[in-house]
Every structure is written in C-alpha cells, then in structure tokens.
C-alpha cells in the first residue's frame, strides 16, 4: 500500500484572542494559562511551539485537539471548532504524546489500528494500513509484540504509526521525543518530520527543547508566561550557519520573558 498524500490541502488553524482560565479547586483562585493568544498556522506548515514549563503549551495542546473549551476567544480549523465540532474531526486530527500511551493489552499492530477502528474502516483495510505504517517505522518484525515487550523508542514508533495511520490533516505532538535518548529522539524526529511532509499534514510540535524546535519546525513560535506570543520565527530566514545565533536569541527571549531584539514578531 502506498502512502497517499492529502488530496485536499488541510485547512488553516486560526487562533483568535484565546484565553483559558483555570480555577484551583482548593484555593478557588483563578490561574490564567493562556491570555489573549493570536496565531495563524498555514496549511501543511510544521510549527514548533517552544516555551518554558508552565507557559501554557500543554493547555494550548488540549484546546487545539478539542479536549477542552476556551474560556474566551476561538480556535478554528477551517470553519470548524475542534471542541464544538468534536466528532467532525474524527480521523482528521491525530496526536503523539510525551509517553507512548499505548494500550498495554493490544499488540503493536492493534495499537496502530486503533484510530482506524474508530473511524470504522473495514478490518482488512485497517490491518493493511496499520502494517504499512509499522513497516515504515521499522517495526515489521514486532507487529505482534505487546508494548511491554518493546523498548521505549519502539513504543514511541508505534505511537507515531498510530497517529499517522489515519493520515490526519492535523498532527499534534506534545513533547513527543523529550523522554528518549538523544540518538533515538533525533532519529524519530527526522522520521516524524519526513512522514508529516509526505502526508501533507499540518504539524504542531510542542517542545521545551530548543534544538528540537530549530531542527524540526518551518516556523518556531515562542511562548512566554500565559502563552504570550514572544516570537514568531520563520526558520528559513535563519539559514543553518545562523542557528547558534537563533538559539541564543530564543534562549534570551525565554529567560527574560520578553522578545529578544534579534527576533522581531
């Protein structure tokens, strides 16, 4: 089975005046996780969102996949809301998490098939597509292995195969390679990126690692506290010899929680 790129371009993602406030159960105090965020992500763009721990990256991830509702403002994917039109995005949005989150009672093949079962594909097609993706990720020998029989890197590959199996329009990865050793993480990042481009998906990678953000994204969005947009960088404008400078500028932005003059938003 050949990998078919998206025939239709995925819709753009538009975030307007997004605000998310949580109320703490014990103290009753309100915590602003995201404060008036505006962001547009073009179709097929690969965007890395980088920010320090607690800056609202994961809250943004939950809002973008539609598992939580904004307090104010909107996130639209095309003309739909991932939260309000939840079912519409079945098979259109896929996720890779920091931990593999494989179902321990399912083999690698059955885990990769899961999203295909949910969209109701015929069994033979589910199997064929899941096997194709597992093969692409170098797991053809391990399709019947249970998660506990696989190494951390292999489990994360199964999780990537599971996300790609539906050939989603939008792919979101939340610190998906952060817990792996450097060699495995770099290898998986490269594979993830190549597959996302091949699939024609829009990809959003949330990370706190600058190297990952610089190495993967077409664009790097830097979040400050409460997801304040500190910098929006098109990596192509910073060719490889300037990467050290770019890293330095992002680092300074994150440390000072204000845009470095070298990075104009």
């Amino acid at each position, binding site marked *: 089975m050949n990998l078919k790129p998206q025939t239709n371009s995925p819709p753009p993602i538009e975030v307007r005046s997004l605000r998310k406030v949580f109320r703490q159960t014990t103290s009753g105090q309100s915590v602003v996780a995201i404060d008036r965020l505006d962001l547009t992500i073009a179709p097929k763009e690969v965007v890395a969102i980088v920010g320090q721990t607690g800056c609202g990256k994961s809250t943004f991830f939950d809002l973008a996949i539609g598992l939580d509702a904004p307090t104010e403002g909107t996130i639209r994917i095309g003309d739909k809301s991932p939260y309000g039109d939840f079912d519409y995005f079945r098979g259109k949005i896929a996720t890779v998490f920091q931990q593999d989150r494989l*179902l321990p009672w399912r083999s690698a093949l059955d885990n990769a098939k899961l999203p295909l*079962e949910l969209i109701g594909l015929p069994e033979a097609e589910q199997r064929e597509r899941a096997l194709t993706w597992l093969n692409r990720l170098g797991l053809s020998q391990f399709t019947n292995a249970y998660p506990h029989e696989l190494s951390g*890197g292999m489990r994360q590959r199964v999780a990537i195969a599971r996300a790609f199996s539906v050939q989603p329009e939008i792919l979101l990865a939340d610190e998906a390679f952060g817990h792996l050793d450097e060699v495995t993480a770099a290898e998986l990042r490269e594979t993830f990126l190549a597959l996302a481009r091949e699939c024609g998906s829009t990809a959003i990678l949330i990370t706190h690692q600058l190297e990952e953000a610089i190495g993967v994204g077409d664009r790097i969005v830097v979040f400050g506290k409460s997801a304040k947009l500190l910098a929006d960088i098109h990596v192509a404008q910073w060719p490889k010899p300037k990467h050290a400078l770019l890293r330095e500028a992002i680092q300074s932005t994150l440390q000072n929680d204000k845009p470095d003059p070298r990075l104009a938003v």
Partner: protein
Amino acid sequence: MPPEEHIPAPVPVPDLIFPRQTLVSLLVFAICWEALSHLAPYLGIPPFAIPSLLRIAKSVADITPLDVAVTLARVIGALIVSFVLGVAAAMAMYRSPTLDDYLHPMIRILMAVPVVSWILFAVLWFPGVEFRIGFVLVVVCGPVFLVDSLDAMRSVPRELRHMMQSFRPTTLQYFIKLMLPAIVPSIFTSWKVNISLAIRVVTIAELVGAVTGIGHQLSVAQELFSVADVFAWTLVLVVLLFLLEAIVARAEKRLLRWRP
C-alpha cells in the same frame, strides 16, 4: 529504519503446581480424623459425630449429580446475571456523576444487609423457589461486580483516557475499546471473590425452602444426623469452588497474557 535498542526479555511465568506440602497436610488431617473416629467411643464422643473415612467415602459415592448440577447452574446463572447488571450499572454510574450520587448510597445499604435478611425477604416476597435463590444471589453478588468495576474504571490512567479521547471515539467505542479491556484484571478479581461468596450464599438459600441442590441435601443430612453426608456434601462444595476458581484462573491467564 532498523529497530535499535534493547528488547526486554519475556519474564517466564511459572506453571501452576500442586504443592507437596498441601498433600502432606491433607494426609495428616485424614490420618488424625480416622484415628479420632476409632477413638471416639473411648473419648465419650458419639460414633456418628466422627464417621470413618470409609463411611464418608460411601456418602461421597451416593452423591446425586442432579443436586450438584442444580446448585452449579444456580451459581453460574446468578453470577452471569450479576456480572452483566453490575458492569452495566457501573458504566452508567461512571458516565453520569448524578446517577452515581443517587445510586451510591443505595449500593452501600444493599451491601450492608446480611445474607440471612435477604433470604427472609425473598421468602416473604416471592413465591417461586428458583426466583428466590436467584434474587438472593444477584442482590449479594451484583453490588460487588458494580463497585469493583466502577473503582477500576475510575483507576484507568488519565493519560490513556486522554489519548483515547483525542482520537474521538463514540461513547460505545470508548467503553468497548478502553474501559472494558482496562478493567478486565479487576473483573477477574471480582469473579474470584464472587464465586466463593455465591457458593456460600447458595448453600444457605437452598437450606431454606429448596427441594433440590446441595443446600437442600445438607439440610436432609442434618435431619438424619448424618455427619458423613454433611462431610461429603461439604467436600463437593469445596471441590466445586476450587474447580470454578481454576476455570477463572485459566481464563485470566489466557486473557491477561499481555501483562508483563
């Protein structure tokens, strides 16, 4: 891409063995019992109180398979009904916190009522013997399945629930693909607890009013002052319990083979 990294070696699962110590302790008990049965007249104990092993063996040989089958059918039937109702109610309560708020106190009250009270209620409320026994078994075992399943559903890791929701399952898919497989280990524990509970409860329920089943035969043996018969029927109950537990353990081993 070639697979790298170390693959953990599978952990060997030891086969179930019948320990020698068990055989030795049973043998010692049998010898002591036999000795006591011969010494009983000299100790002032009536001879019928401690029958010889040969007399017990005769009683075992006289066991009527129909009574065993009837009790077994009652236990299995009631456990299946309890399981289905318990898990279905747990799913509904998991899905609806309001329903949980209303039903939880009722379940706690149900679980606090003694078995004997349930038997008396059943005798007073229902005319049919089978319905009475079934009612008592379901009302005692059902809440165990319910509470265990509900607790297990609530213990499904947030990460897995989050992952599953991100792929947008329907409510039915969410339960079938995530919740039910996730609670299987807990369901097996409930079955083991409930088999033992059901065997004891069915015996008491059959003592009152039933004209078939092991409980009824125990009642007859008591009326005849036949300790040998009581011993034989009790032995049948114990063997039945072990057999059912062995079947559940086998199913558990098969269905939970994914566990490290």
